[in-house]
């Protein structure tokens, strides 16, 4: 097998592993409740409380509730879709930089760790902003409070995604060694 063919086969195998992991995460998320998503919800609720000063109490099997603000951080707010997007973007987008199996395994692990950290930070920022918008009862023309909440979420998530991707791309280029 030529080096080019070997590299392409390695990239294809990496893409297959990424797709398998994202599909498994989607399957897990579709059946997961608040208790199974604590690893995302707990640090997110803690960061939102830190940023906004709004106290959230754990409601077993439901999520985190702020009775004062009438705001709930439910399993649907866990950010699993963003976790999937961030992981897949990093692993697939930087696959071209890896030429060995070891480098690809490192990329998968680093992408998973970076995606988790980015998810908690992005989600906490999104929810902190959403709490403020909710408290202010903000709406703007066709942008009802629900649509504004959606638009704010997309904007915050996507800016975080691009920032993480750009930082990872720069890091990969600066560390471009024979392997990765």
């Amino acid at each position, binding site marked *: 097998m030529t080096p080019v063919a070997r590299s392409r086969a390695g990239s294809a195998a990496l893409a297959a592993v990424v797709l398998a992991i994202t599909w498994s995460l989607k399957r897990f998320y579709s059946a997961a409740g608040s208790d199974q998503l604590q690893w995302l919800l707990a640090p997110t609720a803690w960061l939102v409380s830190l940023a906004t000063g709004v106290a959230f109490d754990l409601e077993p099997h439901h999520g985190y509730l702020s009775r004062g603000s009438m705001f709930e951080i439910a399993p649907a707010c866990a950010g699993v879709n963003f976790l999937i997007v961030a992981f897949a973007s990093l692993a697939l*987008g930087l696959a*071209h930089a890896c030429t060995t199996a070891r480098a690809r395994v490192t990329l998968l692990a680093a992408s998973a760790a970076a995606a988790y950290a980015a998810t908690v930070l992005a989600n906490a920022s999104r929810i902190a902003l959403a709490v403020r918008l909710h408290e202010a009862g903000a709406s703007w023309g066709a942008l009802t409070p629900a649509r504004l909440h*959606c638009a704010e979420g*997309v904007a915050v998530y*996507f800016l975080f995604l*691009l920032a993480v991707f750009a930082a990872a791309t720069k890091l990969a280029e600066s560390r*471009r060694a024979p392997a990765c």
Partner: protein
Amino acid sequence: MRPPADAPRRHRTPLVLVPWLVYVGVTVVAPAINGAVRDPVFAAHAVITLGVSGAITLLWLAAVVVVQSGK
């Protein structure tokens, strides 16, 4: 033969589209395939997602082009 230092620059602009494609794939295309199109709220979600993420991507691409042209 292309100098190794040129390789990252050749990749950079299309790579910016990778996060957008994955984001739209996971948040719009996959739910649509799974039947979310029957939900009346989904159309607004899809329009907002495509509009906001598309606008940010275009701004990001423009910034990348400006930065690259300045080098």
